[in-house]
């Protein structure tokens, strides 16, 4: 065990930190949000140029073979900058689905495109009534003489409106709550019968509701084995957990820093409010929450590649639960310490609070993961 960054890792960190510091302050981000697209192709090209879009993919898939620590470094910086580009959707979720389930040719084709910034992916799995239950899939795909016919609806698909390539889960057998019988399909967004309704979400990101009405797909649309996609879906979500865990650490550290700064400068009753002991202690509790989140994000990075699904499941559930607890503590306290301005759009803290609140609700919330952990036999 060794927590020191290697020279290469330090270089990567410097590079992404510089990008955020130079080109992604709250003003620049505000302009990006106001643009028609709501995100920046220019930034996206830069991410490609810096090698960030191909970071987690192996060299034979066209990527750069970065490991979990490298990924953590990047995501933390993205959190600090409140980056709104579709990195999570494309590189983490879409990318890991392809990495985990696609044939070598498919991997090269799709991930190569992602790495170069040409392709945008989205992972269309959640449905209106599924909430966090991964196995609850009502969309169907029916085999039809070698082809597949896809029907159903996916909701709040992260950056679903931006993607050219959708990875869609559908039930090919079994009941709507079975783990078995779910399959994944690669669906070009412009396929006939696909309707995408895209909209902004409260964290500055974007979502989409996507309907599939008798969408006909050829047999090679199937990603991996038919009926056996559940473990892939679970693992994709776990990659999502590791990514948002690291992102959260960046968000929380920034929220803490700006709250402490505010305590030092804002005066009330004739002195900086940071002299009030209850506010000092609240800031201290925020610090503790950030440290706990940082530790568990490291754990998540360490365990997201774990081969044993049971050990991985426990670790990722632990991580997401802790991140949720910390996110709520840090987000709410940050707003409270700022007082009235904390809930305005003009101040940064509210934006961090909003993104943290959204992350709480992505890939399962505290209660979901606590229920999962409570259902497991503890490590005793």
């Amino acid at each position, binding site marked *: 065990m060794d927590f020191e960054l290697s020279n290469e890792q330090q270089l990567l960190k410097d590079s992404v930190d510089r990008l955020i510091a130079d080109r992604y302050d709250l003003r620049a981000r505000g302009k990006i949000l106001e643009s028609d697209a709501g995100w920046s192709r220019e930034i996206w090209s830069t991410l490609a140029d810096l090698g960030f879009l191909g970071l987690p993919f192996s060299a034979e898939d066209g990527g750069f073979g970065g490991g979990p620590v490298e990924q953590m470094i990047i995501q933390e910086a993205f959190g600090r900058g409140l980056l709104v580009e579709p990195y999570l959707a494309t590189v983490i979720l879409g990318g890991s689905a392809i990495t985990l389930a696609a044939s070598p040719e498919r991997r090269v084709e799709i991930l190569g495109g992602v790495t170069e910034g040409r392709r945008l992916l989205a992972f269309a799995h959640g449905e209106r009534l599924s909430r966090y*239950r991964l196995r*609850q899939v009502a969309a169907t795909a029916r085999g039809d003489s070698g082809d597949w016919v896809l029907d159903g609806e996916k909701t709040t698909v992260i950056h679903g409106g931006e993607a050219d390539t959708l990875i869609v889960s559908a039930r090919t057998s079994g009941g709507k709550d079975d783990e078995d019988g779910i399959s994944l399909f690669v669906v070009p967004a412009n396929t006939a019968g696909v309707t995408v*309704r895209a909209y902004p979400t*409260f964290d500055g990101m974007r979502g989409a509701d996507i309907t599939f009405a008798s969408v006909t797909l050829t047999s090679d649309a199937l990603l991996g084995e038919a009926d056996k996609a559940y473990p892939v879906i679970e693992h994709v979500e776990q990659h999502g957990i590791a990514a948002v865990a690291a992102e959260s650490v960046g968000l929380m550290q920034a929220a803490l820093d700006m709250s402490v700064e505010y305590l030092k400068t804002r005066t009330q*009753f004739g002195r900086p409010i940071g002299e009030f002991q209850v506010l000092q202690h609240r800031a201290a509790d925020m610090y503790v929450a950030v440290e706990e989140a940082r530790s568990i994000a490291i754990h998540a990075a360490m365990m997201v590649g774990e081969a044993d699904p049971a050990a991985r499941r426990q670790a990722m559930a632990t991580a997401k639960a802790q991140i949720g607890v910390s996110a709520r503590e840090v987000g709410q306290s940050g707003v409270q310490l700022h007082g*009235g301005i904390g*809930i*305005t759009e003009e101040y940064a803290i509210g934006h961090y609070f909003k993104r943290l609140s959204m992350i709480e609700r992505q890939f399962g919330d505290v*209660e979901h993961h*606590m229920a999962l952990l409570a259902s497991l036999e503890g490590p005793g």
Partner: protein
Amino acid sequence: MELAFSAEELGFRDEVRAFIAKNLPASAKANGGRWPHWSKDDIVTWQRILNKKGWAVPHWPEEHGGTNWSAVQRYIFIEELLLAPTPEPLSFNVNMVGPVLCAFGNEAQKDFFLPKLRNLDLWFCQGFSEPGAGSDLASLRTSAVRDGDDYIVNGQKIWTSMAHRADWIFALVRTDPNAPKRQMGISFLLIDMTAPGVTVRGIKTIDDAHHVNEVFFDNVRVPISNRIGEENKGWDYAKFLLGNERTGIARVGLSRERLNRAKRLAEKLPAFNGALADDPQFRRKCATIEMQLKSLEITVMRVLDRQRRRNDSTPDPATSVLKMRGAEIQQSTAELLADVAGPMAAPTDAVRAAYEGDFPTELEETLGIIPHYFNSRAATIYGGSNEIQRNIIAKAVLGL
């Protein structure tokens, strides 16, 4: 000591409930089910219905439209409104400036304003907070300088809720900058929002909505006749205002209404296993909130009962408990709702446009939930933050 609601009190509750069921307009009823709740029209219409019934200002003196209800009746009334839910009688009018006028206004002021306040013919807003004076209200700097029969007002207010809907503002202004203590030298003025020099700038909040504003005064002429009470005694009237009529401050009915909403929504959604409504942890959270609300509700009644017997117009520091716990429980219920909605809470209102008029009604249920959660964070900040409430308890109740 008599601990149960009396038969008369229960009968009164049924009467209020029946009145609401019969008279709440359909539009207000429908808007009560989404956030932000009500249009200006909903609020005005409902207050006029209550006024016609004689229920717009129950706690005012009878000669000005009050009902002479007991504290328990007043509590039952406001909680039934919150629970239904109906729009609330506009607090700025009925709980804030109205009672101040009743107590300290001159006859001309009473005659002119009170009927209009009751009937919401004039919509007031509150000009207390300033950029440098949040929790530390007494450090306010907006100035009013005499010029003949007028004051010339200059300065800025902030966090002025609903200023963009308001016709008038009641404001604290500094009339004597050289007073020996900061609480002295402040006066209480009523200012017409249409007067030249008044500017309102909306502040967008993180729930993507427009509730609060900055209000700028640039050489605004305010007739001296619009000052309430004596010059330089405004702090006394403000204290009276802040301590007055805390019947609804705990907002028990509002929290109950949200809890019920969360339970209804949970019936349709899954948890880790089974329906969310059957999830042990969800049920336990609901039971915890119900327990807290029961304790709070009885505490409200105890405070009201004590106020009745106290016969003292200074604020009872025990009301700080009601504000503080009420706000915390409101936040819990807003969190509970947001937790129930889960990922479905993410879309902004712009999602409607994406559906091009074909927006499914089921999606309405979760649409306002997360902004409402964001906005709920203000409950422990405004009107005396929870830190301030704890300071009050420590000092005024415990003598620390």
